[in-house]
């Protein structure tokens, strides 16, 4: 799924997908009323959507809108299990090499044309077409054969078993009859999309707003909320002012907004706040090509010296949990029984002494062979949370005699000059991910070339083996064993010091009912949200 793809984003902490619901909701009276149609839902986007053809866009504004306009063959349900969407059901062959999708027969494109398996085949061909500038071909290039069996049956075959395959079919299906034999980048659909989803595109007022309206012939029934308006408001503080004045019905809050700035009677009267773990974590990564960090004891010592709860309290104001590995603590893949690094400076000193780091010249900084223990944390500009995290770590490491410098660099320069050439000591970054546990690209030793994701240069034959088997295994229990072991090794070796998993903190106008927080967050059942008739605010 586009917005669940592992992808580094500046705002990764505020992704609206996650779990562990602790709703801050005062149940409203009359909730039992029957859902009715009407009203408008207004939300804001920091940036203008780039392109409403999902094959071409990778920004979050576009994928939010595309998520309402298009459907995939499958999707994640409230409990993050894959269920059918345009596909009614599917069969996986005994050798795990092919998947046969049985499509719904009651689906129409927004222009009235019938949806068939030809659209699915066309979408697949478009993604692998070398002339289409998409960043998402990889999953589809694994397919060795795609075939239309009949109007409503579609079969894909893979060369080797590929466990993330099913998830890749959550990709939006594009309309063949409108895109065939055209240059995709010049298609008018990129500004006026036609999909099969619950909402139809109405208008796009460049730089200002984008309007969608309920699809009255949606195959799961017309959604209750009549219109969805995306306002383009680039400044987060302006968004917050708009929210308070009633110009927005939804916004992801920052920790300080959630805890103090919205703690007013008028805000509580008009909004419900929710909190759940986001699909992302922040880490301190060590450049393993540097001799200093090749000693496991040094990395463990630093992990012991950092107080993760202090980071969560200080940086996230308590809205987060300690990360122990790459998976979110409430997912089936999470292994709770791995080595944990409670704050323990004595343990740090002991490990560093074992590794040969001693304060021989009594200047307060450890040294070895005449070299003081000093390194730089580099992180990207524009993410205040990361800079603050670096400062707290700096102070904690000073306590055990390590001198830390901090550099904050503009994003493109950060990647080009520091991360990809391996020109860094340590870095604070985050990964966002989805429910699919495959971490091959981040941890496999074959992915250490320049510009690849294992830029810390982690190499462990057992991890390689586990990752290879993991992505070829379909059985969930078997996969759980594989990824549990993978997490144990990471926890022991600490190639990253895993820091924290932040929470998504959305606020929704109180008149919207039918919101049921679940592991997938709150937006998964948007089609079922409604506003009782007397409370409807926008009549047109």
């Amino acid at each position, binding site marked *: 799924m586009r917005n669940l793809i592992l992808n580094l984003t500046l705002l990764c902490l505020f992704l609206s997908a996650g779990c562990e619901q602790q709703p801050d909701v005062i149940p409203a009276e009359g909730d039992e009323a029957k859902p009715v149609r009407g009203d408008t839902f207004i939300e804001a986007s920091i940036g203008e959507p780039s392109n409403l053809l999902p094959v071409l866009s990778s920004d979050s504004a576009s994928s939010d809108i595309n998520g309402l306009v298009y459907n995939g063959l499958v999707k994640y349900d409230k409990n993050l299990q894959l269920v059918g969407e345009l596909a009614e059901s599917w069969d996986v062959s005994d050798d795990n090499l092919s998947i046969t999708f049985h499509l719904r027969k009651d689906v129409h494109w927004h222009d009235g044309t019938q949806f068939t398996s030809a659209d699915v085949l066309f979408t697949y061909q478009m993604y692998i077409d*070398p002339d289409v500038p998409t*960043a998402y*071909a990889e999953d589809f290039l694994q397919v060795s054969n795609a075939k239309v069996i009949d109007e409503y049956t579609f079969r894909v075959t893979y060369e080797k078993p590929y466990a993330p395959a099913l998830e890749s079919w959550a990709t939006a299906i594009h309309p063949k009859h409108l895109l065939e034999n055209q240059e995709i980048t010049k298609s008018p659909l990129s500004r006026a999309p036609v999909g099969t989803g619950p909402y139809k595109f109405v208008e796009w007022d460049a*730089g200002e707003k984008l309007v969608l309206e309920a699809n009255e012939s949606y195959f799961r029934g017309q959604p209750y909320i009549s219109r969805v308006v995306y306002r383009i*408001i680039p*400044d987060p503080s302006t968004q917050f002012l708009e929210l308070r004045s009633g*110009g927005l019905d939804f916004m992801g809050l920052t920790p300080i907004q959630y805890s103090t700035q919205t703690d007013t009677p008028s805000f509580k009267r008009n909004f419900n706040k929710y909190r759940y773990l986001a699909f992302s974590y922040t880490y301190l990564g060590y450049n393993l090509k540097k001799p200093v960090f090749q000693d496991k004891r040094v990395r463990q010592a630093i992990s012991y010296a950092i107080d993760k709860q202090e980071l969560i309290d200080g940086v996230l104001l308590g809205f987060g949990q300690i990360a122990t590995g790459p998976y979110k603590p409430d997912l089936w893949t999470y292994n709770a029984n791995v080595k944990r690094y409670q704050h323990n400076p004595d343990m740090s000193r002991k490990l560093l002494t074992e590794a040969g780091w001693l304060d021989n010249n009594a200047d307060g900084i450890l040294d070895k062979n005449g070299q003081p223990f000093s390194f730089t944390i580099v992180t990207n500009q524009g993410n205040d949370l990361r800079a603050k995290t670096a400062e707290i770590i700096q102070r904690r490491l000073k306590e055990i005699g390590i001198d830390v410098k901090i550099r904050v660099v503009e994003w*493109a320069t950060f990647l*080009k000059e520091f991360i990809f050439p391996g020109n860094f000591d340590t870095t604070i970054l985050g990964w966002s991910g989805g429910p699919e546990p495959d971490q091959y690209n981040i941890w496999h030793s074959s992915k250490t070339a320049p510009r690849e994701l294992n830029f810390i240069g982690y190499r462990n034959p057992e991890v390689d083996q586990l990752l290879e088997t993991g992505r070829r295994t379909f059985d969930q229990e078997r996969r759980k064993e594989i990824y549990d072991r993978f997490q144990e090794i990471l926890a022991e070796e600490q190639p990253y010091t895993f820091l924290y998993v932040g929470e998504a903190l959305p606020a929704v106008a109180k008149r919207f009912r039918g919101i049921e927080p679940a592991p997938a967050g709150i937006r998964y059942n948007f089609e079922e949200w409604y506003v009782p008739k007397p409370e409807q605010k926008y009549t047109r």
Partner: protein
Amino acid sequence: MINYLLKRIIMMIPLLIGITLISFVVIHLAPGEPTDLQTDLNPKASAEMRERLRERYDLDKPMYVQYGKWLVRLIQFDFGESFSQDHRPVLEKIIERLPITILINVLSILVILAVSIPIGILSAVRRNSLFDRSTTVFVFLGFAMPSFWLALLLMDYLGVRLGLFPIAGLKDIGHEYYNFGRQIWDYVHHLCLPVFVSAFGGLAGFSRYMRSNMLEVIRQDYILTARAKGLSETQVIYKHALRNALLPVITILGLSVPGLIGGSVIFETIFAIPGMGKLFYDGVMMRDYPLIMGVLVIGAVLTLVGNLLADISYALADPRIRRG
């Protein structure tokens, strides 16, 4: 005159090419490429795909080839296609943003002129009076105050607490259902705060400039003559002195022509106004070369044209220059 004009216009061509060449090189020297945003740290993008994308945008070719291709297209008035994911023609993206940027800038210049000219005159005429001193403090307050901070304060007090003004954007959500009069009012209502904030910061420069011009003119002999003739003080100041003091304003207006299409990123971001400043800033952040070059070329042309216009109108307005 015609010869002079022709010469000036022909001289602009090598100047323009120079500007574009330098801009082109500088932008390409910045680390990062347009394709990076889509492919960097994206596990679903392979090395092969990255090359495919680079090839598509000619990024695999040497810089002089890229510049040559760009220049050839430019001569045919083709600004190219944006490298961002919307792949729209650059010209279309710029034209879409121009009207609102120009509108706000023109309004704010009008407000600045309407307020700072009287302030300047009165401060000069009543030099060192209480009025002079208090307006000085006022206009420098505007100059010193960060506009984003003022904007946020006004939005919070006038928008959220008192509910007098809309906070951001250009129109209400239900704008299309309003009648014509209400639509106009809706625009005006939304433009009040942005125009005030952008004008407030510009008052200081202009009113001080006006004040010193006026002081200069009042000291001239012809003012003494006018007074000696027994003209009323009003006639002396508003007829004889003001006309001469306004002359240098023409130069300033000419120089502000390129400023008309340049927006301010911070200001536009805060008020959620889709203007040129934000377009350019986003273009730079995404290394959208054709868009950056398009905005720069238009800006350069306008600067050169603005200078030319200032010179011409100065000559028209001031006989001393015309004859000299």
